[in-house]
């Protein structure tokens, strides 16, 4: 990460906005896929187990359809499931550069778990044909893959949620302390129930709507699939607002602004629309509402992802500002270098320009203002010591407020120091001594 940081740091405000956009895109594509995989595997395992116990061929058929649709190809596992995960640590690494204790290492920790779970799930899918002969192997692979996936996402979602709570970062010394927190537990429970509800929509959309011809061949099976999908989705939909409310309630105050609450209310509202779609699908005589429910689920992921990103940005807005300031400072330094080169080329004096723009707010050569008259204090300095003082001012004379850092670059400071000393020399070289023009109340030994 340090290697990367050296090349793109400090990131500018536009860079950060781009990262935020990338984050939303990843959450919109990756998380629905993971939810589908998680829910479908669990449902398929339950159906296979039920078929094994009571021998219902429709259960086995639905389990097979579900596994082959959702765990379809290794390419989709790689592109939708694994690759986006490798981008996340880079996004968060850029966001939290120089923030000690941000729990990003746990995001990285979850990646191997996800890779392993996808490998095991591919084997699980492969063993479906032999489920009768090797029932325990098949179910074992499913349990292992699903367990690894759920554990990895518990860690991943928890570390992302903990980014909203910078106050507690220094306490997150190990994984147990990361996970033992009501906020992350509610978030994970919301995600798991969302996964089952999405699976309901997946069944309606992909098994009935997408491949309508296949389903229509067997009308009884189509009715079973429709009722199973809609019933599953509707049941888990009712759990969503409960867990989301608890998640919002336990999120730290620093993570909020008014928009967060509107986004959270929108999540609940869209969940209601989905419940209506499932209810409609349950009552309809044919395959309907599958596409509506599935599209609305994507919307829930966008809304919930935006809530999380906004919460993170709110909780860490000062850190983002510090990074932005570093980028601004670097840009200004480059501009000053350019200006210096141009001034040198055109014969203008950078020191005089800077003095008239910055220093003149508080200082005159022959008059006491906020700071002392320069003519009284400059004789103490040479070009080097004056430059050092301008770059890092300190309180010298108790009669004046301490000089704040004027924020000049070393080039500007050197130019101002040279200009001030030069101007003083030209003044003292004239007929009037500078001391006679300063106020008599000035201390005898000029300081500052």
């Amino acid at each position: 990460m340090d290697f990367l940081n050296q090349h793109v740091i400090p990131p500018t405000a536009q860079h950060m906005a781009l990262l935020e956009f990338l984050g939303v895109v990843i959450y919109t594509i990756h998380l629905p896929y993971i939810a589908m995989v998680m829910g479908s595997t669990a449902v398929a395992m339950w159906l296979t187990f039920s078929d094994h116990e009571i021998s219902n061929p429709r259960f086995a058929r639905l389990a097979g359809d579900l596994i082959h649709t959702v765990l379809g190809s290794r390419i989709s596992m790689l592109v939708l499931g694994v690759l986006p995960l490798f981008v996340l640590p880079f996004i968060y690494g850029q966001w939290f550069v120089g923030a000690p204790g941000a729990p990003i290492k746990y995001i990285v920790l979850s990646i191997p778990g996800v890779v392993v779970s996808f490998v095991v799930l591919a084997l699980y899918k492969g063993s479906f044909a032999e489920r009768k002969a090797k029932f325990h192997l098949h179910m074992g692979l499913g349990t292992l893959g699903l367990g690894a996936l759920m554990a990895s996402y518990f860690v991943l979602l928890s570390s992302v949620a903990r980014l909203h709570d910078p106050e507690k970062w220094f306490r997150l010394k190990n994984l147990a302390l990361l996970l033992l927190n009501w906020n992350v537990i509610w978030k994970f429970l919301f995600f798991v129930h969302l996964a089952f509800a999405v699976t309901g929509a997946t069944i309606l959309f992909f098994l009935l709507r997408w491949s309508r011809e296949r389903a229509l061949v067997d009308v009884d099976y189509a009715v079973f699939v429709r009722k199973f999908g809609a019933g599953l989705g509707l049941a888990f939909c009712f759990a969503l607002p409960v867990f989301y409310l608890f998640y919002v309630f336990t999120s730290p105050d620093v993570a909020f602004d008014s928009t967060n609450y509107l986004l959270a209310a929108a999540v609940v509202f869209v969940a209601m629309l989905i419940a209506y779609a499932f209810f409609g699908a349950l009552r309809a005589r044919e395959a309907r509402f599958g596409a509506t429910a599935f599209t609305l689920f994507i919307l829930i992921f966008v809304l919930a992802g935006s809530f999380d990103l906004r919460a993170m940005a709110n909780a860490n807005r000062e850190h983002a500002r510090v990074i932005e300031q570093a980028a601004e400072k670097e840009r200004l330094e480059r501009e000053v270098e350019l200006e210096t080169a141009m001034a040198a080329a055109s014969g203008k004096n950078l020191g005089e320009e800077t003095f008239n723009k910055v220093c003149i707010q508080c200082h005159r050569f022959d008059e006491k203002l906020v700071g002392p008259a320069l003519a009284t204090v400059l004789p103490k300095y040479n070009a080097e010591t004056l430059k050092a003082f301008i770059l890092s001012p300190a309180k010298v004379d108790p009669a004046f407020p301490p000089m704040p850092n004027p924020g000049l670059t070393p080039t500007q400071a050197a130019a101002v120091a040279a200009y001030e000393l030069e101007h003083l020399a030209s003044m003292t070289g004239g007929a009037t001594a500078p001391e006679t023009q300063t106020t008599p109340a000035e201390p005898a030994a000029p300081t500052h």
Partner: protein
Amino acid sequence: MAKRIISAAIFGYFALFAVLVLLLGFRWNVHRKAPDQPIAFSHEVHVGKLNLECMFCHQTADKSTFAGVPPVSRCMECHVAVKTESPEIQKLTKYWNDKEPIPWNRVHRIRIRNHVYFSHKRHIKADIKCEQCHGQLAAMAQVRQVSSLKMGWCVSCHEANQAPTDCTICHK
């Protein structure tokens, strides 16, 4: 009829949660938002850009239990001449001319005050940096409460720094 009842039940159930979420938002907006201030004083400018020390304005932080809100005279030491054309500074000057204190709105408050005693002086003596509790003030245009100031938060920091955790240390 059954369809209508179920539809109404679904609406009622989800609407209840939507209202609860919005009520949470209302509570946050009333109690936890960064309060508006009579003058748009920016710590970002004074601490971030000008590098003023905290104790330059909050003079009693290392001498008293309270950090102290700076007197208007402290502001006027510089602003008698600096940025006098700004409308915010003109507001400040008006308070100065009228000899009135600025009615700042309080940002940090321990909400459940069961005889809690807190001393800024002790914490500064123990070399706790201001931003550890008050956040990155150098980047705050408007100050907000960053730390929860709840007991668990105090205790975990006391434990981390081997500070005493007896009840009577804070509860007098």
